[in-house]
Every structure is written in structure tokens, then in C-alpha cells.
């Protein structure tokens, strides 16, 4: 009888120690997951920020300024545009006129 008790006691101890270990592991994994989640969020926010940054670099204001000043481009007009239709029909309003 006492041997059975001893074995049970051993089993309880082993189980208790295992529980402690599992708890510890679960907690460190939770920490890990938490860190990963906040990293994901940080990257998401960073992505948003860069999106805005990219847009700020491509606003019509800036594009027009650069096109005019650095690339010496000018606004197109119908007079210097060749219109093509998808169906292959002849494009009616086209002109090689210079404004």
C-alpha cells in the first residue's frame, strides 16, 4: 500500500513540475507572440506612413513643378494630341497644329 502511495506521490510531483514548465513555456510563447504582434503593427503603421510619404512626393503640385522646371515640359492641348480609337476606326479629331 505504501509503495502505491509513493508511486502516486512521485507522479503528482512529476506532474506538478511539468505544469510549472508548461506554464513557463506558455508564458514565454505569449511574450513572443505579443512581440511579433506589436512588430506587425509597427510595420503596418510604417507602411501607412511611407504610403503618405510617397503620396506627398507625387502630389500634382510637385509633379507639375518638376515637369515644368526640371524637365521643361508643357501642358498638352488638343492641338498637339493624336486621338486613337480602340475599334481601329480612323481617329477624326487629330491635328498636327502647333499652338
Amino acid at each position, binding site marked *: 500500500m505504501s509503495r502505491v502511495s509513493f508511486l502516486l506521490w512521485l507522479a503528482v510531483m512529476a506532474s506538478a513540475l511539468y505544469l510549472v514548465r508548461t506554464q513557463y513555456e*506558455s*508564458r*514565454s510563447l*505569449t*511574450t513572443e507572440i*505579443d512581440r511579433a504582434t506589436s512588430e506587425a503593427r509597427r510595420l503596418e*503603421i510604417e507602411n*501607412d*506612413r511611407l*504610403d*503618405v510619404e510617397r*503620396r*506627398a512626393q507625387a*502630389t*500634382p*503640385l510637385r509633379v*507639375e513643378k518638376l515637369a515644368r522646371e526640371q524637365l521643361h515640359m508643357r*501642358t*498638352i*492641348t*488638343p*492641338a498637339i*494630341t493624336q*486621338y486613337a480609337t480602340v475599334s481601329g476606326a480612323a481617329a*477624326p*479629331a487629330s*491635328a498636327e*497644329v502647333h*499652338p
Partner: protein
Amino acid sequence: MSSRSVQYTSSPLLASKTPIWRSQFIVAVIAAGFLGLVARAAYVQVIDNAFFKRQGTVRFVRTLDLPANRGRILDRNGNILASSVPVPSIWANPEDIERDPAKLKALAKLLGMTGPELDKKLQDEDKIFVWLKRQVDESIAKDIDALKIKGVYSRKEYKRIYPEGESVAHVVGFTNVENLGQEGVELTFNKDLGGKAGSRRVIKDRFGHVVEDIGEMVPPLDGQDLQLSIDSKVQYFAYEKIKETVIANKAAAGSVVVLDVKTGEVLALVNYPSYSPGKRGNLSGAQLRNRALTDTFEPGSTMKPLVVGLALEKGLVKPETMIQTAPGYLQMGTAKITDSHAHGMLSVNEVIQKSSNVGTVKIAMQMQPHDMWEIFTQVGLGQKPQVPFPGAVTGRLRAYKTWRPIEQATMSYGYGLSASLFQLAQAYTVFAHDGEMVPVSLVKTNQDATGARVFSSHNAAAIRNMLHMVTIQGGTAPKAQTMGYSVGGKTGTAHKVEGKGYASKKYRGFFVGIAPIDNPRIVVAVMVDEPSNGVYFGGDVAAPVFSQTVQQTLRMMGVQPDMAVKPQVVTQVEKESF
């Protein structure tokens, strides 16, 4: 004497009999101790359990807020008009701040404050939290960090960024530091954009790591993105043009509204002066006002096509019917209605083309006030525009029963009632959308709109033809012409109302038009407030903005020119009446 002689069994100490009460006493004391423990345990576990549980929780359970992202505002092509990014905000704990004068001075400088200003914020030592400055630049936050002042901290907060700046300021609006919409669609759609913050309860270890979740997490509900009907390119272009015009004409302000006729979407809605939503340091009311929606004025000659349209609809006139406008004025009781100069016999077409008040009044006086009132109401005058916008006004259109004959006459050429530029633009969709009044939308729909019929398709085309005549030689607004596209529209010039009467030298010039005229795609309305550089007629100040805006907008929409391209020279400008 040997030690053996000692008789342990007969120690005198043992000889005396121990009194029984002593052992009983010990047992009692120990029992009392245990009882005390049991009582305490019962107290902790049962009676005041809640208190102790709470105390335990306070020591290791934390509730984390999970902030929701505010939705972005996009234009019709998905370009960002407003988005939230995290920026540092600086706060301090006055209770235990390190009061080193040199460091505080450096801090004040970085925060852009004076020393006394900073001292004032920090003087109350009972407080443990005070904002020093919210939403500072990343670089400033780093410099402050480098000062290493104890008791000064930074935390991340969301800030709204508006990459397009001034041109869309009035449409988009802005939020306050608490991320709540204050103006524009930021205010109207605040609920949808805002989202809902979530939370989770966790156990933290002493390093501050989350080690366990407790209970259910409430996930944050991110705000929805909002896609507007605005095209940022059209918007930008219109803004630049109205800005140039306002400056060149030394005007007080100007507005442009561009509507897509097929879908009823607002492609552009701009006002100048404007402001930069990111830097709202010293804003004036003049900058903030979304004039296209909040400022009303007497629509003047732009009402004439509506009256003529009604006359066509009722069969009172035909476009070719001749009307005598000589001698250039009309006496009605004590009032005298005049044209800018006498025209003689004019067809109905020409009445619109030359903007004759006398001709219009002669047509209008054949109608019932009720019919005129109904047409004005059907096109949205005197009613709040159905756009989700704070501060949109209704304008003024009095009940027809109160109209005196002279008032009916003046209303036929646009005096005695008022409307906003937006309302005018919407009213002109009646001509552009084949006689139907189109419901407008500030949110992208991409669906063809169906409107309420006001005029027959045939009569709408007839009016469009008259509007086209306004912009060709002999009309009041040849400057509205644009290369490649046929246009039509109506000028208006109004004395500004000041106090109880009209200001003698203050005007408002405007132009509402349609393009291309045979197969309309857009309605553009332009208003210039108080032009004071010599010219003030709508045909002179507003029509050129219309012309350029139409040109760019149709090109961006990929609309093929409907006119042969040739250099067009304007020879003569007719003076309009107002």
C-alpha cells in the same frame, strides 16, 4: 563522590507534579493561533475576497488599449487625401521632474516655448501628468530624448497628414488632436472614419512583458477608408487657376465646382483663400469658409435659362420667337428694368445670348408665379444640397404667394433670391443631363445617375444651344471657349448686397457652364468675389477659369475633342446686363 550516585529518575524537578493547566494553556494558545489563521483565511478568502482579489489584480493585470486606426480619405483614383501616422507627443510628470535650469531652458527651446511658459506648465507639483506639446516632429522628440531629463517622456499619438494640402482643404477638413473630425468630410464621416478602440487584459511580468491573456480580447475596429468622388488632379488644377485669377483680379475670394454630369459626382470643389490643414496656426474665418457651399449670392443672369426653359416647356415661346427689347428698358410701376444697352428685336435665343433683362422679363411675365417657383424649387434652389457637408446652406427662395409682380420680374433675371455656387452648378445639370436634375454625390459612385425630369430632352437641347451661343461671337462670354471642346454656359454679375442695399462698387462675377455642349460630361461653375482690378464681369473674370478648367478636366477624363482644332480669335465682346 561519584557521578553514578546521581539518581536521574528521582530528579527533584520531576518529583514535583506539573500542574495540568500548563499544558492546557499551551494547547489553548496554539489553538487560538490556528483559529486566528482560520479566521484570517476566511476573511481573505470569503468575507473581503473581492478587495484582495482586486489588489492582486492591480499588481499584475494590465488592461491594454488597442487603438483603432482612423480610416483614410482617398480621392476617386485611390490617392491619399488624408491618413493617420503616429507621431511623438511630449509629456512630463511635474511631481518628480528634474529641475535643472539649463536643461529646462534647452527643453523650452526645443518645444518652441519661452522659459516662463514651460515653468507655468510644470508649476503644479501635485499633478503627475501634463502634456508639454502634442504631435511634435520626430527629430525634435529625438533631441528631447537626448537631453535625458528625468520626468519628461514621449508617447506615440496619431496625427492626420494631408499630403495634398491647400487644394483639398475645404473638402477634406481636418481633425483635432484627439483625432475627431472638426471640418469637412472629416467631420461628416467622423463616425465611419473613426473606428472603435479595442482592449485586452493581460498579466505582465516585472520586465513589462505580456505573459498571459486574461479573458476575451476586444479587437479594435479600424475606421473605414472613405473614397471621395473628388479627382485630386482636377481639384489641384482648378485650385491653381482660381488662385491665379483671384490674385490677378485683386479679388477677395473665388470658388470652382466641377460636377460629372453622368454620375452626379463632384469632381472638384475648391475655394481660395484656403489653408494648409496640417498647419493651422493662425487661421482666419475667410480661409476656413467653404464658400462654394456656405456663401449665397443673387444668381443674376444665370437664372435666365431656367425661365426660358420653362417658357419653352409651357409652349409660350419657341427659340426663334421674336421679342421686342427696345428701347432697352421696361417700366413696371415705379421700377425700371434696364439692359446694359438697347438691342431692339431679339429672338429668344438671342435674349439668352445677349443676356437681355427686358427680354427675359417679357417672357417671365407671361407665366404664373407658381410655375416659376416650382421650376426654381425643382432645380434645388431654396433647398439644402444633398451633400454630406457641414454648413451647406439652403439659400433663399420665398414662397410664390408673397411675390409681387415686380419681384417676379426681378427673379426672372436672378435678383430677389439667393443660392450658393454649388446649388447653381447642380441646377445646371438639368440642361446637361437631358432635362433631368441629377442628385450629386461627394462619395465615389461610378454609376450613372438617374434624376428627376424637369425639362423635356428636346427643350434641354434647345437651352444648351442658347448657352452655346453665349460663348461664341456675339455672346457675353467668348472667353469661355476652350480649344477642342464645344462649351456653353451663362455669365452672371451681381452687385454685392451690403446692409440693406447694394454696394455700389462691389461685384461678384460668375459663370456656370457645360461641356462638351452636345454630349455633356461636366458642369463647371466659377465664382470670383469682389474683383477689383478694373474688370468684374462674369464673362471677363470667371469665364477664363471655366475655359481652362474644362480643357484640363475633359483631357484627364479622356474625352475626345468634339471640335476641329484651330486657333480661335475673339473679335468682339458683348457687354452683358445685370
